[in-house]
């Protein structure tokens, strides 16, 4: 029954060209093997004066020897009148025509489904935006296809074709709004499609866009740069020479390495992946590859696409539009996770998403959704193809083979954990009228946007300062109150201006300076020590914060020449302290020395250091607030430590602390950034901006907490949230922050 097909779909990409056809036997789209066992052909051309142009793999081979003859990225140069290589030039239409003719011939000769006849109908994909798009490019493509001998030419936009492939493969009803993120070798494009009159058309308020400075090739070039740096570093001249000679091939090798690495989800780079250059072996580490991928690809895609997605949400009124992740670079390591985390979308991939545009294009006109026809319809073309579209659509759906067999589908290698959902989608019975399809899948995912943060009141803060000042005044006397008053009223403009700024910025920039005081205490702490005339060490607690006021002793003059007995003893104690093996001993000796000789400044400086050392070594015990029911509390589905770790620690310590925490059983860890942000409650009237359940056990200032997430692109910084006002930061990982574990 199946008759040979006469139609081929071709995706002329920036770096690679792909072709597909609809297999008359199975009704499914199949890729054509354009290379030896691979479905792609390099979009490369080689020109030489007086010779016919070479293309594809042949061109690649020649370019390695003779780079000056290369014509690359023709896709972006289709509008030019002529393209040049060396001293030769040719029109882009002619060059593209040659490529299309080559594919046409090859398909006719080698693909049995065509029954030994060259196809006379072609579906060409073209981008939705950028230099490779637009009516003037459409004309070039149309003319090139005609030159290649195709009688009928249909053009379809790449994102639309990809969406068609998804709809066909997933067996799903096309949602009303669909965003296609197409990650190619040399460009990343994004398009929002809307269903209108049974067709997917670009949403006009969010015109398609993209970034042509990002793609798989940029990553591979960067990897080669890393290899090159290594070779340069080694000083091995033979290796350097070989590197220059084989650079084009090495890029290909690195692409393979990167693809394998990304498919293995970054676990390891196999030992066989090392490069041998002369006598030198260069092996890239997993972390190196990961970093390059992140910096040169993931970061940039998330940035551009994130903005686009935002405008789609705004204009489309859909909180979580379906995002199709397609194209050869879509499997780039970390992209999916980053899109989820940073752009707040759940990208959909499926087994054919690598080649979605061309596979979708192969089914154009046979699918439930129509696509663009010939943009330059001549009279005869138009008459021939213009069938009533609704009729075509419904017929196509009825004739569609039963693809919703869950067993068969479960065997297919579906990417990621979405399998159950995909099967569920496929089990939805086919709709006969696509235009009236239900959009339950869409609405089910729509989530509410979080409420806006309540406005903060500056006077609340000032009130806090005043309360703090009063409390302190109780403890430390009248002089202190005066200082506070000076700070608050900003009395002396010219002189205290700097001082004020310094105080606040110190409070902000160096939160590890004091254990856990309220803001006011820290801002005034320095003057306190200088001015309060008491002799003893006073330890008091203000509210929940532990405040230690260490005032200076009376400024009693001591003998500058002769050392008293007590002073001599102090010197002895201090020297013992110097030799002490542990910080604890040192603290003890120094405290004694200070008792004997309170006038000696150096002891105090040394004591401070020793105490800091001691603190750093003290084993950590979870602090429990006295008035709460249990040591843990359940929030957002996770169990949190109610109080935080007793001291602040750097990020590495923090991780270890959580792993070892033995609180109501183990299993603790640092929270993810999202989990930690989930605790922010900007609606609180005063600092800290944290959910009510944890307010009692969270300080209102210097309230930076670690998350388990290392910040992007920097190895020694990690994310944290400061609950004072609920902002997230990337902190240097040596910084001492607070820790609250979760499980």
């Amino acid at each position, binding site marked *: 029954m199946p008759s040979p097909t006469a139609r081929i779909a071709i995706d002329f990409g920036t770096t690679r060209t792909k072709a597909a056809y609809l297999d008359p036997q199975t009704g499914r789209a199949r890729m054509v093997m354009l290379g030896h066992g691979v479905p792609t052909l390099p979009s490369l051309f080689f020109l030489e004066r007086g010779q016919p142009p070479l293309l594809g793999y042949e061109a690649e081979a020649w370019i390695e020897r003779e*780079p000056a*003859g*290369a014509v690359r990225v023709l896709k972006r140069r289709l509008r030019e009148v002529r393209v*040049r*290589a*060396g001293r030769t030039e040719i029109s882009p239409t002619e060059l593209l025509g040659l490529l299309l003719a080559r594919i046409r011939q090859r398909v006719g000769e080698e693909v049995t489904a065509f029954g030994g006849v060259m196809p006379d109908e072609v579906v060409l994909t073209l981008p939705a935006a950028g*230099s490779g798009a*637009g*009516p*003037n490019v459409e004309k070039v493509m149309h003319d090139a296809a005609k030159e290649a001998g195709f009688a009928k030419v249909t053009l379809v936009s790449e994102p639309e074709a990809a969406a068609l492939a998804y709809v066909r493969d997933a067996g799903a009803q096309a949602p009303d709004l669909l965003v296609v993120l197409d990650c190619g070798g040399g460009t990343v494009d994004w398009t929002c499609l809307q269903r209108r*009159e049974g067709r997917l058309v*670009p949403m*006009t308020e969010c*015109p398609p*866009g993209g*970034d*042509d400075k990002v793609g798989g090739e940029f990553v*591979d*070039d960067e990897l*080669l740069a890393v290899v090159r740096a290594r070779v*340069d570093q080694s000083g091995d001249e033979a290796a350097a020479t070989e590197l*220059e000679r084989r*650079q084009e091939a090495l890029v290909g090798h690195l692409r393979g390495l990167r693809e394998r690495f990304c498919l293995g989800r970054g676990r390891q780079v196999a030992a066989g992946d090392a490069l041998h250059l002369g006598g030198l072996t260069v092996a890239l580490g997993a972390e190196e590859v990961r970093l390059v991928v992140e*910096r040169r690809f993931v*970061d940039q895609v998330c*940035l*551009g696409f994130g*903005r686009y997605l935002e405008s789609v949400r705004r204009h489309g009124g859909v909180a979580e539009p379906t995002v199709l992740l397609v194209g050869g670079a879509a499997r780039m390591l970390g992209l999916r996770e980053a899109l989820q985390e940073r752009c707040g979308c759940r990208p959909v991939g499926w087994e054919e998403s690598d080649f979605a545009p061309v596979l979708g294009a192969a089914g154009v006109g046979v699918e439930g959704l129509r696509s663009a*026809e010939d943009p330059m319809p001549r009279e005869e073309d138009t008459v021939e193809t*213009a069938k*009533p579209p609704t009729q075509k659509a419904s017929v196509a759906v009825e004739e569609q083979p039963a693809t919703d067999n869950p067993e068969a589908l479960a065997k297919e290698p579906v990417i990621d954990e979405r399998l159950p959902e995909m099967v569920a989608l496929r089990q939805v019975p086919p709709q006969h009228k696509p235009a009236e399809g239900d959009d339950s899948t869409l609405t089910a995912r729509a989530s509410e946007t979080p409420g806006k943060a309540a406005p*903060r009141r*500056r006077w609340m803060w000032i009130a806090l300062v005043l309360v703090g000042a009063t409390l302190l005044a109780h403890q430390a006397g009248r002089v202190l109150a005066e200082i506070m008053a000076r700070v608050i009223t*900003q009395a002396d403009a010219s*002189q205290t201006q700097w001082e004020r*700024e*310094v*105080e*606040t*910025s110190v409070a*902000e*920039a*160096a939160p*590890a*300076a004091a254990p856990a005081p309220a803001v006011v205490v820290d801002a005034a702490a320095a003057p306190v020590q*200088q001015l309060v005339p008491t002799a003893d060490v006073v330890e008091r607690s203000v509210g929940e914060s532990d405040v230690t006021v260490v005032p*200076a002793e009376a400024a009693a*003059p*001591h003998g500058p020449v002769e050392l008293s007995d007590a002073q001599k003893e102090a010197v002895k104690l201090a020297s013992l302290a110097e030799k002490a093996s542990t910080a604890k001993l040192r603290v003890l000796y120094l405290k004694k020395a200070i008792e004997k000789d309170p006038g*000696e400044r150096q002891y*105090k*400086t040394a004591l*401070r250091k020793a105490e800091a050392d001691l603190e750093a070594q003290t084993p950590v015990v979870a602090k429990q607030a006295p008035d709460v029911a249990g040591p843990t509390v359940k929030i957002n589905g996770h169990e949190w430590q109610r109080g935080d770790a007793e001291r602040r620690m750097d990020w590495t310590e923090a991780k270890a602390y959580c792993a070892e925490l033995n609180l109501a059983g183990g299993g603790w860890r640092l929270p993810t950034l999202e989990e930690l942000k989930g605790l922010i409650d900007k609606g609180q009237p005063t600092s800290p901006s944290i959910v009510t359940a944890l307010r009692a056990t969270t300080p209102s200032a210097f309230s930076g907490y670690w998350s388990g997430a290392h910040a992007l*692109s920097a190895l020694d910084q990690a994310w944290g949230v400061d609950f004072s*006002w609920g902002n997230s*930061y*990337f*902190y240097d990982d*040596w*910084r001492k922050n607070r820790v609250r574990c979760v499980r």
Partner: protein
Amino acid sequence: MRLAFTLDDYQRAVESFARRLPDLLARTSETADLAVDVERLAIAETLRARFTVAVVGQMRAGKSTLLNALIGRDLAPTGITETTATVNWFRWDPGERTQAFRVHWADGSEADFPLAAIADWLHAGAHTATTRWLDFFSSSAFLQTAFLVDTPGTRSTLDRHEQAAHSFVEGEAASGRADAILYVVNPVARESDRDLLAQFGDLTRMAGASVHNSIAVVQKWEHLDQGPWQSADPEAEIARKCAHMFEQLRTQVAAVVPASGMLARCAADPANGPAWEVLARMAAQCDDDDFEVLTDSEDLFCEADEVFAGGVPSQLERQAVVRQIPWPAVRLSLREARRRRLGDAAALLGRVRALSGIDALAQLLGERFLKQAALIKANTVLRRAWLPCQVALARLGATDQHLRDELGHCQALRQRLAAVADAPLRGELDVFVSARELELRAAVQRVRELRADLDQVREEALRNHEALDGDLRTIGLLLETPGLSPAERGMALQVCGRQGHAIASRLGLPADAPMAVLVETAEERLAWAQARSGRGARHGPIFAHIAERLGQMLEALEA
């Protein structure tokens, strides 16, 4: 298509793009509303206006302090809280107006006030809500080349501050727009820094364009006094820090540089002279133990004389120092003076000025912003006119499609009519369908022509932009990439227009060189660049751009 090689040509090309756009858009009803949008952009005015650098950042990042340091005068009010409440412009004025500031009220009127009256416009002051913006005036040299704008901090505790800052960054503020920004960050970068920068970039740059109109400045780093800061060379440490930040922000800023407005102002204030003397003397003369005590904390620094062994200036002198100079600056200068053995006040002062990074910043601004001012302005205009253009193309595409569907229906109908020989009303239907078909054909034709025209205009502007933007990016790469021979680097820089933008200068030839020589040189260089531009080649991206440019030059020469 004629490509621009000089900045003037580019500016003209962008201007003509922006001017032609409204006419094109007004041609059909589908796009007429967009024409209004484009006209509202006031393209010509934007291009003519003085180049403006906005200082933005989160609250209390020290924006006003940095601005004062750049102007060289304490004009912008600074303070302990979120001081700046309004958008404040700093304009150049040779004299008379510098003792007053001008208030632009919300009702459109304006009035001058003496500088002392500023308190009502700070923080949540009485007049902040009824003011649109303030103008300050100074005869500072910096302001002669570019205006500066101080904005209230973002992430503010006051909603009004937040709104004022954002509307300025988004270019919606009544007072005007920024062409470039100085993004002031604290040494601890925040998540939202990236967002704000991305937002600015989105509004002023094409996707993927080089980032020559934003620079991030790390301020207040002198306050850091923990971790590696305690021991390390502060300059090296802050440089390392900036390099890290640059890694994170490299798609949004051209550079991350350290600067300390506070150090700069301290060094510049003549009243501080005696204080520097004291510090220099102290650093040179005291012993190690005393030095440790002195740099420990402000209270120990001001301790009684008896505590110190000798060579330490008196308590009164020391107290005077910390009254003049903020403690972090005191500690930093003491440590610097000691480390580098700076014996006298002049040397110390010079060192502090260098550490403040303010001169380096001003120079960087000159190079990155002011020399490229025309280009940056044209890019901003292009970016703004771009969206309506894209929307128009998308709409026309949809219309085109729709019309062709209709046409298909018509043709199918006509065929079916032809098949039924004796249909009732056949003649009338035929006439109706044919007329409709003709109408649709005309409409398709109209839409198609407009699409092609718009596409052409847009592509021309984009090509020009990409070419010049590529020049800038490649110059950047050429200057920072090692391993190129000086001859090759020089030739490549020439092609990118470093020695002049005209084609002859780009080819290293005199302006009156004969055509044949120009063509021959271009061809030679093209072969050279193409041979080096292979995939994976060392400096491949550089030479790919060079080759592209040379190809374009040849085309222009032949035309």
